């Protein structure tokens, strides 16, 4: 396979070429599609699953509640200051335990992204992770954002979109991030009994009722798209059908069994048949919203919305309409079979045309530089978090459920570009000795993206270090071509 085609394949569809990785023979399209096989689970071994985290979080909360009760009880609470210290200690312990786990998640994620030979698959994981954005800014969801990527997205990225959608919408990360876990049907048993019970003494601090947040984002962001032809009544109907979709509580966890972190609470579920997008869904408990999600996953508007997003992510900010059409048709013909859609994308002429180019996000800039120079990013995850924060793309911290932006205009401002130049210098200084040959490294990383001007500049560099900095800071390295 010609080196420049291979470099292009790796830049456009992957996370950038690793040294020597482009020597593989054959057609670059076949090479990419061959990467679409499951990753060995050992890459993420040792990280706790969400059910386990949920159990520990509940235990932690119980402990805190007991502390608070003790502080209120004048007999057992010897001194107020003492109980406050105890609380602070618990809080610190929470941060230490769970904060460390988040760093371990990030270390594993970045180490894998830098080392993997299946970087096209990894790009797809990151694409879907951003499509189904969850922010650790929301405290209730903080412990489940990274696990959601591992547990809901990775296993389904090579399957059907319907299964991916269902896995995400029933994961604690999404259920908590978009408030569905506390959404209660107004005609549900819980609302009727709960409102009678709660009013007298606990006051109006908790309002029992419907929360539309998840339903709205499912329609607007996750499936149909903002112009997908739904209205406010559809949002409400989906929200009502989703009532009862929550995370396992103490009782469910204690009951044993498979300990899925998802729990359906029929007491909170709004009874009755619902109508979504003109179609009737009879009452069926958890199955009602399941059926809705399944239909949404194969809706033509969803196919179009996702075809556009995929083409925009891999081909160009304004993707060719003909390509979007073909992707959408493949989606519908294959009932949301994702690998079939990926194959059309990779085999399309549009993706390989000279005019197709994408500006790297900060995440992809750092990952491709680390891959090209053989730098381990997993070693100091806390430093990495700080760095990505300053570059404007901290992991699992999108500013909204829409996820991080995906066009050049969002990432190519002067402030961002200036920081890339600074970072290019810093990364060049960390390159291992084996990769301190700017011209050879540039050829391996850029293929046809290495133009004569950059080549000449690299030849004239005063030191290998300056050459590498020049390479990473160059416009050619900022673009995927």
């Amino acid at each position, binding site marked *: 396979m010609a080196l420049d085609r291979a470099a292009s394949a790796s830049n456009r569809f992957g996370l950038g070429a690793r040294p020597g990785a482009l020597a593989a023979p054959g057609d670059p399209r076949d090479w990419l599609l061959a990467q679409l096989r499951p990753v060995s689970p050992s890459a993420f071994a040792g990280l706790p699953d969400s059910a386990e985290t949920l159990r520990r979080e509940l235990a932690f909360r119980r402990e805190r509640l007991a502390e*608070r009760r003790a502080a209120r009880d004048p007999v057992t609470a010897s001194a107020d200051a003492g109980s*406050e210290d105890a609380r602070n200690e618990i809080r610190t312990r929470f941060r230490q335990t769970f904060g460390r786990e988040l760093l371990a998640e990030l270390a594993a994620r970045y180490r894998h992204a830098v080392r993997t030979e299946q970087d096209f698959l990894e790009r797809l994981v990151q694409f879907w992770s951003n499509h189904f954005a969850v922010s650790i800014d929301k405290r209730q969801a903080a412990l489940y954002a990274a696990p959601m990527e591992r547990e809901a997205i990775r296993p389904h990225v090579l399957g059907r979109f319907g299964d991916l959608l269902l896995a995400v919408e029933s994961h604690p990360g999404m259920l908590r991030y978009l408030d569905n876990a506390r959404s209660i049907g107004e005609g549900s048993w819980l609302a009727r009994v709960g409102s009678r019970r709660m009013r007298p003494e606990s006051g*109006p601090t908790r309002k029992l009722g419907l929360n539309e947040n998840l339903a709205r984002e499912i329609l607007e962001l996750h499936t149909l798209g903002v112009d997908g032809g739904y209205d406010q009544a559809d949002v409400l109907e989906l929200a009502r059908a989703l009532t009862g979709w929550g995370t396992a509580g103490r009782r469910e966890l204690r009951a044993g069994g498979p300990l899925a972190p998802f729990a359906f609470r029929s007491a909170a579920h709004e009874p009755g048949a619902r109508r979504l997008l003109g179609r009737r869904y009879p009452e069926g408990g958890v199955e009602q919203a399941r059926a809705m999600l399944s239909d949404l996953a194969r809706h033509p508007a969803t196919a179009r919305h996702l075809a556009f997003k995929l083409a925009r992510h891999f081909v160009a900010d304004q993707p060719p309409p003909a390509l979007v059409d073909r992707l959408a048709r493949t989606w519908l013909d294959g009932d949301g079979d994702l690998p079939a859609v990926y194959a059309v994308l990779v085999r399309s002429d549009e993706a390989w045309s000279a005019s197709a180019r994408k500006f790297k996000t900060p995440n992809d800039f750092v990952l491709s530089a680390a891959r090209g120079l053989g730098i381990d990013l997993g070693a100091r995850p806390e430093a990495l978090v700080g760095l990505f924060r300053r570059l404007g793309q901290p992991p699992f911290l999108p500013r909204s459920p829409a996820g991080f932006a995906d066009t050049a205009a969002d990432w190519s401002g002067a402030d961002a570009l200036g920081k890339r*130049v600074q970072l*290019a210098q810093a990364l060049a200084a960390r390159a291992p000795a084996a990769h301190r040959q700017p011209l050879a490294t540039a050829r391996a990383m850029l293929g046809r993206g290495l133009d004569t001007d950059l080549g000449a*500049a690299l030849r*004239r560099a005063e030191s290998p270090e300056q050459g590498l900095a020049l390479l990473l800071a160059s*416009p050619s390295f900022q673009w995927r071509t």
Partner: protein
Amino acid sequence: MRLSRRRFLIASGASATLALWPRTAAWGAPGGADPRLLVVLLRGGLDGLHVLPPLDDPDAARLRAALLPDAPLALDGSFGLHPALGFAHTLYQRGDLLPVVAVAPPYRERSHFDAQDCLENGTGTPGGSHTGWLNRCVGAMGGAEGLAIASVMPLSLRGPAPARTWSPPLPQAVDPRLLERLAPLYAADPELATAFEQVAAGSLDAMAGESRRARGRLPDLAGVAARFLAAAGGPRVGFVEDSGWDTHGSQARVLGRKLAELDAALEAFHDAARAVWPSTVVVVLTEFGRTVAINGTGGTDHGTGGLALLAGGPVAGGRIGGDWPGLGVRSLYEGRDLRPTGDLRGLLKGVLGRHLGVSEAALETQVFPDSRSVPRMEGLIG
């Protein structure tokens, strides 16, 4: 051309960088002034009752004894000002500070996340818009540009109108020779050429001046914002943010420290923007207030009615704005919070309309959609 940033900084200062900024068109500002706006967002839910204790409210002493600051600074007799806000007090005495009490965004639940979302998207519902009211305001001004002193564009300034971010650069000093060698490569890239020229010229950094070494604390960021807003061709709408205002425990200690920072930020901004202070309004916002009652850990929990501060030359200050509902049991919202009597969107409409000259139609349909029923708060400016 030699593109040594260091030399450029020394030789030219801010004025030579102006050519790099898009030409600012005039918008319909009253009096033909060149108005500026800085939005300061305090994330976490500031306790307005602590900042501005209602001294003559008979219920304050009963409900708030442990959290009434010692020796509050005198305001109009009915309210005092937290003693950490010495500079703000000076502004008040000069008529340049207007605290507005009992205001809140239309959101009535108690999630920080959703409340900030509403406050920033400018609607009554979380997820109500994926663009921010401040960005739509910039769009309505025409020819203006917004700048967030932040590494991630905040929702407030997200959207199609021109806006960018600036944050303190990474610690590595850039070798000027690297910039020099990159220059011809970027000059050949039509999409990146302008941004790179700004990098090479250090245009934003030049405006930021010494604050390039800012560490990200609020006073630093406010000072940087002032330099940008004061520059003749710079952005006219600025945004800075700070977190850590969620005070469930040890509130007196935490707010003593945080309010001193806010005060230092106002002073840093004022001093660096002195020349344009007469045409600048600073709006300090937070997503909601806190409970009136003190909790078991010397703090307060999430409440509703909050506080906004307006500062600047054009502000009709030296008095307390807003409609005080009182802390009597029957006056409280849901029996626990200060009842909001003013909608923050109404306050912002008052500032944007009177100060920036944004039209009523644009305010109702574009900046704060569906806010026709929210009356514009009058008398804040001028």
